């Protein structure tokens, strides 16, 4: 019988391929904070903007995911854009309008909007 360690290895491989199937290997990954605190600060609306862009707005080659709280309470809602081969970009205090600008400038044209970056 298979050992638990073998089973978990198989499960992990399956999990990884499922995530890849969802588009994890897209050139950009976008994470939107969706803990209670982030939602209270307005992240649900921000998430909607990104979701719409992916489903209806023709935004392609982007993997969109929610995430828990990273700990930057005073800068919520937070959004991260992770691009292969580049340094991760963390945005703070994002609202729906800013989210649209991130889509138009950063995700579509590759321009980082420096004034909203957390460092």
């Amino acid at each position: 019988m298979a050992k638990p360690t073998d089973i978990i290895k198989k499960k992990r491989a399956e999990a990884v391929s499922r995530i890849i199937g969802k588009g994890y290997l897209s050139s950009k990954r976008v994470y939107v904070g969706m803990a209670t605190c982030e939602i209270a600060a307005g992240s649900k609306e921000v998430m909607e903007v990104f979701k719409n862009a992916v489903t209806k707005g023709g935004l392609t080659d982007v993997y969109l995911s929610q995430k828990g709280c990273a700990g930057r309470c005073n800068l919520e809602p937070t959004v991260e854009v992770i691009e292969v081969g580049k340094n991760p970009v963390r945005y703070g205090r994002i609202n729906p309008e800013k989210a649209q600008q991130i889509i138009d400038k950063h995700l579509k044209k590759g321009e980082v909007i420096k004034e909203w970056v957390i460092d």
Partner: protein
Amino acid sequence: MSKEYIITICDGTGCIQKSNAAIRKALEQQLKDHNLTNDVRVNLSGCLGMCDKGPIVVINPGYTIYGNVTTNDIPEIVEEHIVKGKPLARLAIQEDHLYNRFFRIFGDAKFFGKQMRIALRNCGIIDPENIDDYLSLRGYEALAKVLTDMTPKQVIEEVKLSGLRGRGGAGFPTGVKWQVTARAGSPNSPRSTSDEKYVICNADEGDPGAFMDRSAIEGDPHTVLEGMIIGGYAIGAKQGIVYIRAEYPLAVRRLEKAISDAREHGLLGKNILGSDFSFDIDIRLGAGAFVCGEETALIRSIEGGRGMPRPRPPYPSVEGLFGKPTLINNVETWANIPVIILDSGKWFSTIGTERSKGTKVFALAGKVVNTGLIEVPMGTTLREIIYDIGGGIPDNKEFKAVQTGGPSGGCLPAKYLDTPVDYESLAKAGSIMGSGGMIVIDQDSCMVDIARYFLEFTQNESCGKCTPCREGTKRMLDILIKIAEGKGEMYDIENLERLGNMIKKASLCGLGQSAPNPVLSTILNFREEYEEHVKDKKCRAGVCKKLLTYEITDKCVGCDACKKACPVVAITGTTKAKHVIDQNKCIKCGACFSKCKFNAIIKK
């Protein structure tokens, strides 16, 4: 070269001893020589947990880790990695540790760089509602390892070796607790006859301003479940219960989803991962009583009774839920377990101080620039937390005190800023580690008022079972209010101290035993403020309303704005002439103060 690089040098104690300062100097010189200072950012980080391979240098993007770096290696690193863009295989080390997963995304930001994340390792980087995300980051591998290669006894030994202590506040050694619970119920044990046992996760987070458990569960629920299953295996339990407050609906929902996903994957339920170990977890919702964070009250609440504590011993490890041996640990404690199993207890024991191992999560709040949820190695000083991570006090105001441990803790003044955060040092300074609340207080706060605020909370939450806590805290609160209203006498301060110490000694549970702490610690460290309230009838921070007087100075131009704002018609004076406040009528609401455009009204 078009890329922007970020080079992080580990600034942990281990690496400092190995001359990382010289490395930084050499690196900065090399970057200057290559004219690269604008394209490369050099950062210092907190301990990266790889002390045996230090000094450590990390280069992003790509998260290349270089170990055992010497100043002689620096020219080669800069030439090959930065100029030519090819990581240097000779010095690169491969690490697949579980902790600090967040570092590759957040590590170069100052707020995050000084942190080390073990319990919160996945928070903010994975989708908490997708078990695949957790599985892909070696999730449930610790459980599989335990089920394949380790006996329950070995698991307990590993936890003991790690030096992990309870993160709920009391700091009891976790491994010892596990051992006692594992032994309970055996034929040799005099008390318990049944071999049925329970595992409980205490997620009844009640401290005002604390949100560590909520964030941990909302950000990474599976790590808590994995820890609990391992605990169940170690002590021989089949059932686990998460006791979480109903005020955390999102955390509850994510936990429910995590449990059902884990069941679907065969990670919970019968014959976990094909082994002969079976274990399941249920959720019980608490109604939000603070006292239910106390383990015996919590157990009573799960049993369906009113949440009230009972005397210990017997401890829950021997006689807990339904009289059976019960292993009860806090959310953060459970979240540490998978790391201890996979990264080893020995590694875990290298982090932290001599008697406090690992890291601690704090909810940093109050008058600090960067409020937030942080996790730092034990032994980090309060100063590092408040100034390096927290960014200091806003608006250039002066630091006055830091309150740790919530309503059970104490206030520490500036002279304790260099106190390292660990169980013993904080206790020695007159506060406690607690579950992780940390509130920064500036000059605008009155210490008598702070003490009153916390005591009001605990007094309200006292379950009423034992007299010292029920009556004592009420009397203490009466005295505090008397002082805050300017009716205090000097003997009141002594009475507070006497009563406080009595309540601490005589109360049944932790709630009462710690309730006087905010009062006692503020008297100890800010006695002069209490005396001012009593003798001079003055509150220097201008918080205690009854001791305030508003006065109109000669700056007044007679614009009538204050007169119109006053709800009790206490201000008189003709237009364009200086106005006067009738102190007998004034209710100190401050409406005139905020309305005046000429700064003519002063608070005294």
